[in-house]
């Protein structure tokens, strides 16, 4: 072998060694932190036992605010008295195809939550005897599954975070939950809401799903259609988890209700032209046109419908239909008048909801990409409020104890009083399953007590 080759090997070795040396900076502290965390486990278990002994009603009455006013107490003997913050880690799609969701869905909520908590001095943790501010670490997975799973490992193994926030989308959540469970972390979902998560809910007791989805929204659509005398539907669904799930739930539910499905059409996520589908739907003469699709198909479908003069009695849209930003894409308030969307909530739901809507808009007023999401925002924020109240109520950072606390208690949050059943927010806690744009306002139109306005059916003509 030539000297040239030998030198190449040396170069590679030198490079490798220097890189390893660079990587090695945080190894020792990480190990130390790990050991501290493991040592804290018995205390957490004891705390858990103590919590279980107390009556559930009493526990739910222990409001976080009162605890935070308590005088600083001595930290428990087996926790690190020098701990200065609660490390919260998240892997979010800040670039790539899912970036829109971090920008407009869960993103604005967790950013406001951290800001509010820290402005208040932090979260009071009894075992530390003081308030601890949140140290938020967010990594960008570039909308790539490989990156996402690796970066959660980094948050857990290298950064030694105390809590994990969820990633974007049902698919990513499905992969992140087992990772969190493997290391004993609880995970409260955000954008992911799906029947496919049922398996994860059964398998991972420290996973909580928060968004309402097909199980309640498809029956809400059926109820509304029956109430309004709709007899047929033309359904378009995207070939992904959301579309497959909603269409699969709709087919038997519609048949059972006697609603004729004129066509059930699946489309790829990158469908380039919706015109043939709109033409087909128009020819079918169906009363309701239902899009279980995302904005990249939903918004063009609205515009093409306007262009072709297709105006069914009901025009129902999937994720993105609840985004305030749809107005800009589809001709303002008039351009979306009468469109029905999966969701839903508004500031009529409760004084807390009204305050939350006001706060979120104020917090994001300088972000040109921000727009209210009248399906998810309040649910996402409620999940963070639950986490905060559970930490304060349980008085520990132990994920297992907090997970159990969440299961055992009711919480007063922006949505009102909420609780979990089988690790999902109980259906009666939601402010609505279906919304409709009326004069630019997202009215809740469920055929039940959540309704904030009568539905406008048939849908008004396009402008």
């Amino acid at each position: 072998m030539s000297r040239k080759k030998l030198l190449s090997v040396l170069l590679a070795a030198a490079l490798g060694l220097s890189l390893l040396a660079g990587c090695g900076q945080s190894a020792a502290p990480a190990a130390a932190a790990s050991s501290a965390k493991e040592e804290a486990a018995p205390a957490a278990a004891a705390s858990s036992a103590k919590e279980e002994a107390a009556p559930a009603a009493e526990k739910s009455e222990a409001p976080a605010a009162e605890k935070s006013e308590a005088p600083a107490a001595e930290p428990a003997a087996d926790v690190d008295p020098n701990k200065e913050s609660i490390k919260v880690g998240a892997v979010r799609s800040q670039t790539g195809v899912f970036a829109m969701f971090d920008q407009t869905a869960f993103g604005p909520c967790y950013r406001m939550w951290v800001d509010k908590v820290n402005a208040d001095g932090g979260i009071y943790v009894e075992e530390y005897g003081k308030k601890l501010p949140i140290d938020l670490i967010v990594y960008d997975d570039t909308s790539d599954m490989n990156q996402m799973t690796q970066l959660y490992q980094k948050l857990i193994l290298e950064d030694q975070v105390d809590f994990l926030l969820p990633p974007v989308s049902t698919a990513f959540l499905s992969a992140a939950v087992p990772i969190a469970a493997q290391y004993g972390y609880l995970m409260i979902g955000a954008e992911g809401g799906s029947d496919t998560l049922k398996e994860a809910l059964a398998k991972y007791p420290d996973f909580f799903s928060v968004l309402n989805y097909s199980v309640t929204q498809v029956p809400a659509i059926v109820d509304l259609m029956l109430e309004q005398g709709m007899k047929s539907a033309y359904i378009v669904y995207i070939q992904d988890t959301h579309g497959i799930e909603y269409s699969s739930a709709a087919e038997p539910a519609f048949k059972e209700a006697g609603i004729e499905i004129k066509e059930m059409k699946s489309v790829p996520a990158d469908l380039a032209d919706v015109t043939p589908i709109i033409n087909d739907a128009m020819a079918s003469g169906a009363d309701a046109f239902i899009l279980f699709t995302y904005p990249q198909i939903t918004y063009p479908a609205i515009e093409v419908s306007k262009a072709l003069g297709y105006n069914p009695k009901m025009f129902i849209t999937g994720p993105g239909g609840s985004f305030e930003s749809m107005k800009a894409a589809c001709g303002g308030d008039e351009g979306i008048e009468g469109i029905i969307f999966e969701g839903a909530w508004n500031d009529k739901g409760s004084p807390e909801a009204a305050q939350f809507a006001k706060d979120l808009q104020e917090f994001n007023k300088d972000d040109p990409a921000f727009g209210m999401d009248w399906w998810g925002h309040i649910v996402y924020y409620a999940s963070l409020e639950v986490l905060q109240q559970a930490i304060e109520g349980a008085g520990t950072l132990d994920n297992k104890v907090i997970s159990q606390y969440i299961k055992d208690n009711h919480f007063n949050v922006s949505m009102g009083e909420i609780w979990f059943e089988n690790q999902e927010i109980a259906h009666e806690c939601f402010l609505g399953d279906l919304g409709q744009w009326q004069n630019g306002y997202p009215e809740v139109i469920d055929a039940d007590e959540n309704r904030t306005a009568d539905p406008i059916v048939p849908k008004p003509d396009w402008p």
Partner: protein
Amino acid sequence: MSKTNDRGGARIKQQIIPIVIVAVLFGLSFLTRTGSALRPSYYVVLFVSILNYIVLAVSWNIFSGPSGYISLSTAAFFGLGIYVSALLGEKLPVPLLMIVAGVISFAIAAIIGVITLRLRGVYFTIFTFGLVLLLQYFILWYEVKFNNLRGRTVMAVPYNTVFICLLILAGIVLIAAYYVKRSRFGMALTGIGECEDAAAHIGVNTTMVKVIAFAATSFAIGASGAAKATTMIYIDPPIAFNVMMSFMPVLMVIFGGAGSFLGPIIGAIVFTLLQEQLTTKWPKWYMIIFGVVMIISIVFLPKGLVGSFGEMVGKRKKLLLIAATAVFMVVGFIFTKLLAAAGTNIGGLVFPLLFGIIGFVIFANVLKRGKEAA
């Protein structure tokens, strides 16, 4: 007598690289001891990515480097491997999953190779890229139509197990790459790359050589996909057949040096670390910096790091280049520390890596110009 000694010496030297490979990989296997089975060290997690990219980049380089047939099918066979794990992950251990995925990839690549390796230049490249999309949409259609599902859960396996499996696979691929380059088979591939007609005229069965090389490297790519899938946990067709998996190995090889043995390895290591560091430290700048690094590499280091290093004449210049790169990396490290002291804690390897690349580019060009002037 001296000729016999020379030949013996050459043979001994030829064995050094494989021995070094085995020794380094064996040394790396001790990383599993830095954590436990349930809580591995983050080094192990990081090296799973690095080893995965090493397998992909070196495999790509074995076939496309010398033959000049630019394949973008890496994501297709990687995705097949992922689906093998998704379907059989609960029934088979990881090594068997890798073998099954490898065999399936080999068979499909051989069939495709026989049909398409008569295509040349851009036609072959476009076909291989089309193969990724074809498989992605075919599996999506099949899953939706017949199974009424879009994604699948993959049986999770401890990182240490995946790490060891990929370590062994990387060892096999590296040793194969080293010997193929020095074999008659490797010379035939190089001949095809230089002038396929001439290679055919001197008796090389060009189609067979191309098909075997394409299929054999696809075996390794499929096997790597099967192992990596167990860390991804949930997959669907767009995730499994991610087109970036076709482009990243090519970029790594171009950066490190196409056709060389060490080029793809260095490219895979630097790119994986740079990607990990930039996405975590500078997420908004990630693609911009990545793009700039690639443009600088192509403009100023057209033969990649290893190719440019090989162009240095004389031991002194080579040592100077190594020293300059090392100094720049140290400066980058000090710069990071100074920023941290000033309250901007970027940390990690971003600056050492970027400074190292800049130092290498500057000195490689300065020393090369010196040579040309002389």
